[in-house]
């Protein structure tokens, strides 16, 4: 699970390698008879964005990671975040959800109206200052998303029509699909982040 800090400026948590210019084939190893640049430097030999490698060693990078993780941990423990949003996998689709959201699901769910449901597959949880990205899912003890089934209806009758010209073939069929409306009641984070 990767925790990354969304605040702009200060720290870059990824280390960029001082890599040779464009299109170094993988078969070329570091020992070769041509030293220095393998290709002539042209306008296309470097990417157009500024690519300065940050001279940060491994230990400092690990310290920065640990600092970020502890800062995020503290925030979670003090419950310092405002409104949380979560990306949730439900009914074969992924939804980006917050509190008091309504979701329309185009199929039938085995729960009665008014039942409280816990949505378990949480892929990402975010607040204003930090995001928790699951790989691929976040732990069950970490994030908790609760929803209520509000309404179970059917969709409006959609027309499915097939027609082949000059063949006297046409078929018309009405398709009505069951729908469920869920209201997301709460998204919660638990204060144990490793």
């Amino acid at each position: 699970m990767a925790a990354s800090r969304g605040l702009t400026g200060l720290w870059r948590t990824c280390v960029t390698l001082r890599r040779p210019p464009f299109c170094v084939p993988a078969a070329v190893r570091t020992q070769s008879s041509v030293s220095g640049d393998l290709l002539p430097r042209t306008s296309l030999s470097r990417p157009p964005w500024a690519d300065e490698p940050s001279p940060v060693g491994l230990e400092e990078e690990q310290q920065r990671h640990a600092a970020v993780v502890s800062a995020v941990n503290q925030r979670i423990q003090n419950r310092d975040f405002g409104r949380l949003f979560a990306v949730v996998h439900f009914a074969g689709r992924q939804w980006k959800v917050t509190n008091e959201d309504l979701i329309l699901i185009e199929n039938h769910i085995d729960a009665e109206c008014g039942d409280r449901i816990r949505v378990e597959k949480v892929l990402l949880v975010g607040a204003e200052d930090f995001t928790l990205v699951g790989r691929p899912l976040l732990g069950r003890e970490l994030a908790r998303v609760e929803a209520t089934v509000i309404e179970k209806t059917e969709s409006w009758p959609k027309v499915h029509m097939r027609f082949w010209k000059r063949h006297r073939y046409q078929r018309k069929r009405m398709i009505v699909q069951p729908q469920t409306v869920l209201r997301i009641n709460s998204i919660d984070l638990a204060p144990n982040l490793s």
Partner: protein
Amino acid sequence: MVFLTLPLWIRNRGPDRFWKVQDLLKHARHFRGRKNRCYSLAVRAVRRAFVYATKSRKLKKRNMRTLWISRIAAATREHGMKYPALIHNLTKSSVQLNRRVISDLAITEPRTFQSLAKIAKARQQEGFRAALGDGKEPPGVLSRIVMLQ
């Protein structure tokens, strides 16, 4: 044909032609020209409309996906990466967000999208190090193999 009385000689058609015609014309009321009033023209126009609606339900899914992809590509280029690199490295880091959600995050949650771009960039650098180096560097944080359920 045997008709015993004059009233029976007169043809008696069905009683609800009016409502059947109105049932079809109601689907054509927003069309342009005589197709919204005249039954024969409306039949053809409504049939075409229904067939187009059925076919475009499949096209809509394709179009939405290309829209999401172009939005994600534009957003990743703001962060100094390209779309194929982002998607490939996110899947290699076993982040299984789909394109719809990533494009929504790029629009409404720019910091979260930046963090995803950083994850992909770090994984890309680890991949480059593994490919170009001699394999003696320790494997990075993001490229360890995670067993997916």
